[in-house]
């Protein structure tokens, strides 16, 4: 069979000296870049375009893919240790990873993240290998109406991200939706809420908001409360996971490998939405959801599995259709063109060695990442032993560098500080930041796809309920909204009796 030969030549490529060397270099570079708050894989891949100019295309792709998933793998480190997300796909990891580290279990949190990343990465590569051509059809099914329904479903989770008051969570979410409307409106070309400031024309970058609301706000709180709280526990705790931990992890890891992978396949969705949806869905089905947000094992395992699975998922439309599924794969697509690789529906036939070589190198890369990361955890976690004043300065500095690297624009640094202040004020008055950030991610896409769908259907709103996928998604959204309310009233009635 042709494809078996293809796979064999892919194995040959992946296990060649060059293949092994460059997947290793790629994942090392990726992990390091991912660990730095704000620095992500897109920039790293863009830099490599001229470097890989004369390389064997397959090896270059192996290298760049390694940087990509390596960065997603490493991105959890600063989320957990510093509350400063390394890349946008690891924002959800801060929700439980950071509380865990504060409890003195940084080592355990990092170990959970590494293992879940490995599992998510590996299972999704298997899925990628088995189903890439079949699944690419799913990606194609998603039009504006379906995306709108998916985003609505995501937003119903806001109440579950609430930490106490649902009203406060909703206010936080609405503010997030408002913030994302800033900039040029994609459907009319009109500028909205920019106040004539050209720096706001392209909107506010997600990482600016995330680093502001999480890292800078945390730093503010640490500085202002420095006399009240005792010096933080510098110990990192044991790396060992108990049997119970492993048991807790296995459910989320299994489920999120699939969910994350599927979300990754959808163009425009990617690791960020994957990790949020992973976190939310695990919280929804958990027996004790109140543990989430306070350092739950599942709360770390779920987003970390999902974001790595989504990363492999993003390769499905890229390799099998030539359609980039995320910002990073869009840059990767550009890089491939330089290398004379034309990703498209014919890639599997035309260049089987390359196609399978990259996929197989992803297994190897994930193994490298695990062997590389686990032994390093005690050393990396030592960061927490740094005296607090220095640590705070470091977080501020790295957040600033990360934000500056997004656009090389000093204006974004002011925005970072503004969102830091907003984040701190929100904390003071107990408004949760998670709904803000979730609404910021989903709101933009929700509005855009709603309006695209309406334009296409000539303003016929039934477009959302006449197409099966969109309708089912909306139905699930409706259920996930109503069921908790019904359960609540029943419980109250029962209590009254």
């Amino acid at each position: 069979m042709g494809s078996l030969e293809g796979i064999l030549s892919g194995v040959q490529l992946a296990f060649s000296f060059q293949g092994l060397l460059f997947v290793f270099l790629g994942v090392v570079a990726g992990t390091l870049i991912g660990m730095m708050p704000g620095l992500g894989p897109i920039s790293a891949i863009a830099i490599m375009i001229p470097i890989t100019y004369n390389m064997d295309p397959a090896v270059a792709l192996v290298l760049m893919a390694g940087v990509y998933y390596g960065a997603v793998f490493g991105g959890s480190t600063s989320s957990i240790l510093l509350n400063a997300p390394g890349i946008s796909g690891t924002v959800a990891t801060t929700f439980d990873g950071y509380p865990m580290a504060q409890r003195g279990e940084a080592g355990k949190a990092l170990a959970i993240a590494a293992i879940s990343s490995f599992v998510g990465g590996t299972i999704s590569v298997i899925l990628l290998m088995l189903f890439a051509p079949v699944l690419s059809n799913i990606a194609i099914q998603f039009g504006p109406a379906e995306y709108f329904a998916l985003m609505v479903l995501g937003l119903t989770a806001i109440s579950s991200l609430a930490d106490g008051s649902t009203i406060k969570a909703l206010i936080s979410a609405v503010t997030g939706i408002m913030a994302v409307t800033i900039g040029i409106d994609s459907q009319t070309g009109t500028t909205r809420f920019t106040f004539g400031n050209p720096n706001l024309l392209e909107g506010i970058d997600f990482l600016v908001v995330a680093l502001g609301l999480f890292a800078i706000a945390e730093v503010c709180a640490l500085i202002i409360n420095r006399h009240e709280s005792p010096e933080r526990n510098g110990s990192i705790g044991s790396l060992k996971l108990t049997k119970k931990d492993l048991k807790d992890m296995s459910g989320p890891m299994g489920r999120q490998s699939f969910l994350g992978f599927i979300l990754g396949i959808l163009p425009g969705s990617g690791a960020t939405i994957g990790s949020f949806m992973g976190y939310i869905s695990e919280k929804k089905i958990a027996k004790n959801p109140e543990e989430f947000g306070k350092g739950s094992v599942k709360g770390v395992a779920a987003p970390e599995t999902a974001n790595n699975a989504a990363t492999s998922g993003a390769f499905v439309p890229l390799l099998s259709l030539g359609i980039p599924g995320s910002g990073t794969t869009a840059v990767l697509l550009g890089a491939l063109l330089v290398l004379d690789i034309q990703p498209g529906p014919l890639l599997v036939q035309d260049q089987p060695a390359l196609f399978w070589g990259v996929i197989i190198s992803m297994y190897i890369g994930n193994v490298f990442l695990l062997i590389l990361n686990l032994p390093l955890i005690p050393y990396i976690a030592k960061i927490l032993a740094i005296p607090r004043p220095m640590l705070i300065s470091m977080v501020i500095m790295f957040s600033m560098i990360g934000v500056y690297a997004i656009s090389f624009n000093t204006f974004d640094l002011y925005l970072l500080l503004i969102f830091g202040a907003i984040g701190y004020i929100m904390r003071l008055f107990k408004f949760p930041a998670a709904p803000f950030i979730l609404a910021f991610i989903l709101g933009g896409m929700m509005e855009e796809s709603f309006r695209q769908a309406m334009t296409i259907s000539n303003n016929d709103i039934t477009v959302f309920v006449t197409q099966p996928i969109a309708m089912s998604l909306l139905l699930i959204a409706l259920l996930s909204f109503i069921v908790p309310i019904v359960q609540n009233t029943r419980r109250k009635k029962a209590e009254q009796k």
Partner: protein
Amino acid sequence: MKKSLVLSLSLFTVLGLAACGTENSGSNENGSASGSSGQENWTPQQSLEIVAPSGAGGGWDTTARMAAEGFESEGIIDKGIGVVNKEGGGGAIGWSYIAEKAGNPHHMFVSSPPLLLVPLNGQSQYGFEDFTPIANMISDYGAFAVRDDAKWDNLNELFDDMKDNPEDITVIGESSPGSMDHIQFVKIAKAAGVDPQSIKYVSAQDGSTMTNLLNGNADVYSSGVTETIEQVRAEEIRVLGVTAEERLEGDVVSEFPTAKEQGIDETFVNWRGFFGPPDMTEAQISYYEEKFKALSESEHWADTREKFAWNEMYMDSGEYTQFLKEEKESMQQLLNELNISGG
């Protein structure tokens, strides 16, 4: 263009920061030096900076990086050349950065039709008149694609259908209304007699344009020629027309009919070239003209063009300025008809 296509140059951040420091000190020296040495020959006194006013990985970024690489590997310019991304405002952030470098010709940026469209849409205070057009290097053209099973066989059938049932046909492109993908389609459709305002245009980012063409949400995809090639080869889509003057050269693209040969007398050029800050002297302009011409004529650049399916379109400073004036007028007219204006 959008925020997802963000994040520039992480590894070089520190270098970038360092470079900023040296630029500032450099601009002072050269601000005064350029006035006195404006007569005869001029050569750069320091390393050069090319700004790509977008995130990493896009068309501007690629052009800038490939040009810098070409200058260095061919030994055309012996000073170091750094490419810096200044993303934001559809280019406006990068442009205002160069506008502030008046009198310091060590800084340039790469641009294309958005340099005309963004100011016309009222989204940038600087337009091409505020800079020194140095040289145009390449051109690219638009392509209008439909699904392989679509009922139209050529542009005229499509446009006739659009005249009768404009609400049934959705055109999709990456950029927002009033920007390139929209304007290139409107320009050709208008020449064929379609009312510009009746065209139903949807903008979609993040790679979902092709998806929406393939799944039937959109009927026509207005894009660059390169983006269509692979799907055409796989017989998923067909290209009804390209906006070039003549047939393009290359494997698949030579089969794409032009709008012109279908009797629609209109073209749209996605030109790409380099601009310097305001107030450059004759000597400085001719220095760069010469260098860009040498690059344009080199084997190396021919390879680059082939790799990215770009077309040769060298223009020197004078030709370029004239060309831009004419292009701007025609864009202005289209935008007026679409009722899109500065806001």
